[in-house]
């Protein structure tokens, strides 16, 4: 049996989902929309049922593109997502509003279970719901009380699923019908009538034991305060980034080291050949390139899930909304944008919380402009190369200032581009906030771990496929060249090695360099030289630009390979010396201030990260937006680098 799980947001829907399905969950796609379809298996003895989690909505009628899936799936028995039964979560502490949606779904004549959740919270608010009276109003529904947070009501729910009541045509009220189309006037009338009827019965359903005037929450006073609100948010961010910086680097270094030695071991223990190279240089580093992101994704979502579960995130949205709206963004864009300072991948994945499609899209499109941690190695090398290590104004280090400037440039351009996109991207939906601010709660460990697991799984399977394919393509382009060309230079190196008396490692570096230069990527790098010359780059930089499309930090390793210097893993001294000594045909140095800064600016803007593109494809469910992103960022990078180079030279 296929069962749909429905309910208002913040009613504990995902807690009920986890309670019913345990760890047996799978994330797929709903056709046509960008929402994920989370499914799980409910096992009741021998019985097995599929539970599908639908987006939380306040009404059957969609208010955003993503909510359409609820209406289209439930109202059309011919739809592939049409369920055999529905479970609707109703928040006992907010009965009136929740009954609107329940009564709409009730009228659709699908076998239905009403889960009256959060009865404990209602109790705290001195409200008591009369379950028997509720059952009388909806005689064809199975009403189950539960407090999913403490797994109470699980067995009753299982029983209700195994013994569903048959639908015999009973509806909420004889004069009220669910709007047959998406006509807004009809929806308005339906909603109005339903609320009127709910109002007439609510007195019998709900008894308010003692009316208490709810004092404004003392936490809210501080957390949305014009000064402390922002300070607290900044402090929380700082702590999160510190944690990620400190704790993500440890597993990242381990993963990096593991895959490096694993591929080395492969290369040595398997017979020499193309297949071994494919494994040791293409596939294994490719998988390593996927695994390396897992610690950051896991940690960031661990924190985001805590912020969300506690209810704090909605307060952040509340205080940031006004500041971000002029840029076509939403209060909810804060988390994706700031997460992107660590890494754009979890940042883009966290944009899921933005319900307005246009605002989500803009957030996703500009997020990679925020300077991520992968740019740091590139910036560090280039700054060390062309920016003097001097002090100005008595205490400011010029190198530090430049680094700060690059970060600031990323932020400013993200906001600027967002502003422009707001003017160009058209949607029929008008954005709104109208957000429920849930009460503060202790986070549930199981819910948080499920979020982390789900996000990591999504990234590894969905984006991973694309990343691995591109890695293999890049490997092939960097390893093969037109027939015989690489072999010829290798012979030349063998003889040179003997006459010049090179050590083994020197020889290997020369071989790697020659191989790269004569591979298809090398040839490509040379052929784009006329295009990148106006930016101040030569073909060697061109090659590194192409290889670092895999990931920005590859730039440094690639330069080291081309210049045939070893990677000392520390401060890149040999590479820096070699780069400084490089000259152009006319004898002038390659890495002037103009070229260096132009390269830095290029990396501020360019979409040099296949993993991000893969994730944008995953999140927008089409190649259109990642390609647009690749295009606009490329054009921006080229123009900005061109202007920089010409201003400085």
């Amino acid at each position, binding site marked *: 049996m296929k069962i749909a799980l429905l309910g208002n947001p913040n009613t504990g829907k995902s807690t009920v989902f986890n309670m019913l399905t345990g760890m047996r969950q799978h994330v797929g796609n709903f056709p046509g929309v960008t929402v994920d379809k989370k499914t799980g298996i409910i096992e009741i003895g021998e019985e097995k049922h599929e539970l599908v989690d639908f987006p939380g909505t306040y009404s059957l009628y969609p208010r955003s593109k993503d909510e359409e899936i609820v209406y289209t799936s439930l109202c059309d028995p011919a739809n592939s997502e049409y369920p055999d039964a529905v479970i609707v979560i109703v928040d006992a502490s907010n009965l009136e509003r929740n009954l609107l949606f329940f009564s709409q779904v009730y009228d659709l004549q699908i076998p239905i279970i009403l889960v009256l959740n959060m009865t404990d919270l209602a109790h705290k608010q001195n409200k008591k719901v009369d379950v028997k009276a509720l059952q009388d109003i909806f005689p064809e529904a199975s009403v189950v009380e539960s407090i999913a947070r403490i797994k109470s009501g699980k067995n009753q729910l299982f029983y209700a699923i195994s013994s569903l009541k048959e639908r015999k045509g009973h509806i909420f009220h004889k004069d009220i019908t669910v709007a047959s189309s998406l006509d807004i006037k009809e929806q308005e009338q339906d909603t109005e009538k339903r609320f009127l009827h709910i109002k007439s019965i609510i007195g019998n359903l709900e008894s308010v034991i003692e009316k208490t005037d709810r004092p404004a929450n003392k936490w809210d006073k501080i957390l949305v305060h014009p000064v402390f609100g922002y300070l607290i948010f900044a402090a929380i961010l700082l702590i999160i980034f510190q944690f990620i910086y400190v704790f993500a680097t440890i597993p990242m270094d381990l993963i990096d080291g593991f895959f490096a030695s694993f591929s080395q071991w492969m290369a040595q223990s398997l017979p020499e050949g193309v297949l071994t190279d494919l494994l040791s240089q293409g596939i294994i580093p490719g998988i390593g390139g996927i695994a390396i992101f897992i610690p950051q994704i896991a940690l960031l979502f661990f924190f985001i899930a805590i912020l969300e579960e506690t209810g704090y995130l909605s307060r952040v949205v509340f205080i940031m*909304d006004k500041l971000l709206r002029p840029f076509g963004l939403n209060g909810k864009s804060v988390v994706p944008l700031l997460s992107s300072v660590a890494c754009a991948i979890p940042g883009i994945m966290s944009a899921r919380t933005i319900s307005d499609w246009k605002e989500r899209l803009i957030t996703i499109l500009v997020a990679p402009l925020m300077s991520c941690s992968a740019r740091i190695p590139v910036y560090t090398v280039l700054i060390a190369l062309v920016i003097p290590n001097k002090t100005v104004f008595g205490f400011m280090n010029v190198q530090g200032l430049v680094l700060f400037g690059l970060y600031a440039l990323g932020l400013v351009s993200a906001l600027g581009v967002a502003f422009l996109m707001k003017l160009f991207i058209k949607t029929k939906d008008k954005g709104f906030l109208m957000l429920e601010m849930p009460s503060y709660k202790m986070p549930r460990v199981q819910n948080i771990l499920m979020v982390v697991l789900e996000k990591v799984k999504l990234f590894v399977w969905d984006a991973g496929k694309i990343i691995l394919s591109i890695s293999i393509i890049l490997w092939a382009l960097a390893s093969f060249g037109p027939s015989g060309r690489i072999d010829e230079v290798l012979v030349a190196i063998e003889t040179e090695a003997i006459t010049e008396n090179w050590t083994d490692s020197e020889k290997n570096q020369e071989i790697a360099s020659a191989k790269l230069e004569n591979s298809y990527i090398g040839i490509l790098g040379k052929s784009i030289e006329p295009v990148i010359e106006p930016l101040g780059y030569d073909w060697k930089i061109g090659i590194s630009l192409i290889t670092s499309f895999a990931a920005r930090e590859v730039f440094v390793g690639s330069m080291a390979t081309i210049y045939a210097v070893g990677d000392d893993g520390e401060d890149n001294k040999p590479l820096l010396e070699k780069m400084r000594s490089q000259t152009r045909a006319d004898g002038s140095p390659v890495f002037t201030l103009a070229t260096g800064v132009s390269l830095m600016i290029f990396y501020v803007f360019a979409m040099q990260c296949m993993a991000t593109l893969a994730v944008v494809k995953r999140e927008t469910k089409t190649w259109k937006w990642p390609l647009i992103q690749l295009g606009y960022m490329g054009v921006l990078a080229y123009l900005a680098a061109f202007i920089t180079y010409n201003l400085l030279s």
Partner: protein
Amino acid sequence: MEKLLSNIKNGEHVIVRELKNSVFKVKMMEMGLIKGKKIEVLFRAPFGGPIAIDVDGYTLSLRKDEAALVLIDIQNDV
């Protein structure tokens, strides 16, 4: 003079009189802003940002221009 929810001070208790016609009207009703509903303005975001109101024990935040679509009467009995 008609009174709008967007102009109400924090801590005031009001009653929804009517929702102005807009594309948000149904959405607002769905969020519980129906005629006759008693609400309290709880707090507001800095710099003219959204306002937070209490509707039947839950907190709803809405932008100022959204709140300006809600006509209200001052609740006198509190």
